[in-house]
Structure formats: structure tokens, C-alpha cells
């Protein structure tokens, strides 16, 4: 069974790379810090997708022992990504908390405006 001959083929790698580059572009091109965090999350989701699809076994079911099923998907990448999702939520909330603090002390969350304020002083 060759992977490349089936319909989805290597499509998922393209999806992952496109999503990753979209996220990366948002992070470097946007001045708004909330948008930067959204970009980081898109980047993160691309990595999640890569790992989750890696765990898929053709014809496999959920890895729960039951009669009549012999092929199971690999649960290890899924568990790894479960942890990564939790870490992602934690980093997102930490980033948003930092944005809130920056808003409190600068009155703006635009990167260039903060830079201008810094240059003035």
C-alpha cells in the first residue's frame, strides 16, 4: 500500500505548510498584538495537524479494545498533541495577559505606536 497513490496523498503536508506560513506571515506582518497571537495560534494548529494526521492508520479505529477490530490508530501522537493543546491554551492566555498589561501602561497594543512612544521618551 503506497501512500502517494491514494487521493489525499501528501495533501496534508501542503495544508500544514500553507497554514504554517499563513500563521508566520500574520506574526511578522501585523502590528496589532492580538493579531500576532492569533497568528501564533494558526502556526500552532498547523503543527497539531501534522502530528494528528501522522497517527492515523488506514482503516484503523479509535484505539479502544473491542471485538471485531484489529487495526487501531496510533494514540501516541494524539496524546502528545492533547498536551500541546493545553500548553497552547496556557501560552495564549499568558500572551493575552501581557497584552492587557501593555494596554494598561501604553494605552495601545499597536507595535509601531509603542515604538514611537518609546522613541519620544
Amino acid at each position, binding site marked *: 500500500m503506497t501512500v502517494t497513490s491514494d487521493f489525499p496523498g501528501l495533501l496534508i503536508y501542503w495544508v500544514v505548510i500553507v497554514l504554517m506560513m499563513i500563521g508566520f506571515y500574520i506574526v511578522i506582518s501585523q502590528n496589532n498584538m492580538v493579531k500576532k497571537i492569533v497568528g501564533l495560534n494558526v502556526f500552532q494548529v498547523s503543527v497539531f495537524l501534522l502530528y494528528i494526521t501522522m497517527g492515523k492508520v488506514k482503516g484503523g479505529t*479509535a484505539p*479502544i479494545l473491542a471485538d471485531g477490530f484489529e487495526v487501531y490508530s496510533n494514540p501516541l501522537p494524539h496524546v502528545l498533541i*492533547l498536551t500541546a*493543546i*493545553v500548553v497552547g*491554551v496556557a501560552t495564549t*492566555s499568558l500572551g*493575552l*495577559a501581557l497584552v*492587557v498589561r501593555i494596554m494598561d501602561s501604553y494605552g495601545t497594543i499597536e507595535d509601531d505606536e509603542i515604538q514611537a512612544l518609546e522613541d519620544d521618551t
Partner: protein
Amino acid sequence: MNTRMQQKVVLRVVSKFLIPFILLFALYVQWHGDFGPGGGFQAGVIFAAGFILYALIYGVERTRQVIPAWVTRSLLSVGVLLYSGVGVATLLMGGEFLNYSVLAHVPTHGQHLGVLLVEAGVGITVFSAMTTIFIAFAGQDS
């Protein structure tokens, strides 16, 4: 934002109708995690989603009356304590840390009990963490 939300009768009625089912589904995902897809992380997030929906519709102050700060704060540690408590209990009963087999006379029963308790701990902590994070952000300007 909240006063505007409170005027939306459809949203208020529909969410009031939905919240019990969201909480029930969270409990199903939590306790069915042994036999099917599910577990503490997912159940905690779904359970928290019910409270977050309530906070979105009725405002943060009313949510804090439903679930005060000291409740979420203590639940955060209760979950971690439950998880590590199971580990310490297995140590005291003669197994390795988190070796569930020693929890009951029959090893498989012990494993069932251990996973159930550990997942309950995870669910409680994830639920209170999600609600705390949301309310901490949403309650900024009040």
C-alpha cells in the same frame, strides 16, 4: 456589552435551554472516558464552556454569584490534589506512583477506579482553570 446582551431575548432563552445539556454532555464525556473517546481535558473544557456561555449572556458579575472566586480557586487545587493523591495512595498501598492495579483486590478494578479518579482530577482542574482564565479577562473593565 453585557447590558446589550441581556436585551437579546432569543439568545437568553436559547442559552438557558442549552446550558444544562452542555453540562450533561461534559459529564458524559468525563465518565464515559473509560470506554470511549473522552476524558478529563475534553470534559473540563466542555463543562467550562457552559459557564462561559452563561457569562457571555448574563455578565461576569452574575457568573461570579453562581461560581464565586474562592470556589474556582479551591477547585484548581482540589483537582491537582486528587491526581497526586491517587499517586501517593498507590505508593502507600505498595505499588509504584500511579500504579492503579493495587487500588483494589482485582487489578482491573483498581485500574478502572484509578483512571476514573485521575480523570476526575484533570477535569476539575481544567474546568476551573478555563473559567478562571475567561473571567479574569472578561472581568477586566468591571
